[in-house]
């Protein structure tokens, strides 16, 4: 390296020499070039002051959020049980959508609480409609037997499905064998 080249060398190359990481050619030239040595001596204190200041400031700066998360993942022990793996997967899936997921869950719970109340409300409304469904359990039946009367020595069997279209009444005139004519299971 010529004298001119050495004196034109940028400061960071001289600083590298101060840190022990300098180019060998520059180091050899410095031994024989007084102006460069003087320049190096001036840079020395300034460089150390800068380094101290930077080190102090770096100590008070928090690590970046993403960097800290990555570091936490690296440091975290690997999940062993299936439950831990599932929880980890679930947390990963949720990610930033956690708030949305909680909102959806809350809405579903609210719906589960309100739906029976609304159903009850509308059911009671329909009961007030003329001829509408009643509370006696035959809301969907097409036929509702309200009353049956027979002469004293006769009995009746009423078959009325809760949701069917047909009701059956059997009049047992009391001769004994009549009841056998209608199928068992009628009520």
């Amino acid at each position, binding site marked *: 390296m010529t004298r001119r080249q050495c004196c034109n060398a940028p400061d960071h190359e001289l600083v590298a020499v101060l840190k022990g990481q300098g180019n060998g050619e520059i180091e050899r030239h410095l031994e024989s070039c007084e102006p460069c040595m003087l320049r190096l001596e001036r840079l020395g204190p300034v460089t150390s002051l800068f380094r101290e200041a930077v080190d102090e400031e770096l100590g008070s700066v928090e690590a970046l959020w993403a960097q800290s998360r990555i570091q936490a993942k690296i440091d975290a022990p690997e999940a062993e049980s299936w439950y831990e793996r599932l929880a980890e997967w679930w947390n990963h899936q949720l990610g930033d959508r956690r708030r949305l997921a909680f909102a959806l869950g809350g809405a579903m719970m609210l719906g589960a609480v309100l739906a029976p109340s609304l159903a009850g409300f509308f059911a009671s409304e329909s009961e007030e*409609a*003329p*001829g*509408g469904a009643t509370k006696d359990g035959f809301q969907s*039946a*097409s*036929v*509702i*037997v*309200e*009353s*049956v*009367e*027979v*002469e004293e020595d*006769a009995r009746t069997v009423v*078959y009325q499905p809760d949701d069917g*279209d*047909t*009701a*059956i*009444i*059997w*009049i*047992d*005139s009391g*001769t004994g064998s*009549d009841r*056998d*004519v*209608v*199928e068992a299971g*009628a009520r």
Partner: protein
Amino acid sequence: MSSKPALADSKDEVPKLHLTVVEATATGAVDKELARLRTDLARFKLQGFKVRDKVIMALRDGSAGKVKLPNKAWVEANVETDPKKGDARIRLFSDNPKFSTVLKLKSGGRLIVGGPKFADGVLVFVLENPL
């Protein structure tokens, strides 16, 4: 046996109430007209079902239909509630045996009453509010 419309309304849009008298016996077949009731009639331990008489009436407040039974008795249906205000409330009754029932009948609903003895079988009344 012919069907005779009694108190029938000439307007087609008025719903109709059908009252059919059926003779049920231990043997025989099911009339074609009763084929749609086969499942319900199967609840009776009888084989033969034959239409003896039928009346069709308008399903409106005050309508009535009466059918004379083969045993000289009769069965009558009275509509007590205007179907326009809700379901039809119908009173069905006969004089022999003395029998009376009150029911609500929606469109497509049906009531089958069996039991009165006749000849070798029994009489069955079918009250329908066809769709």
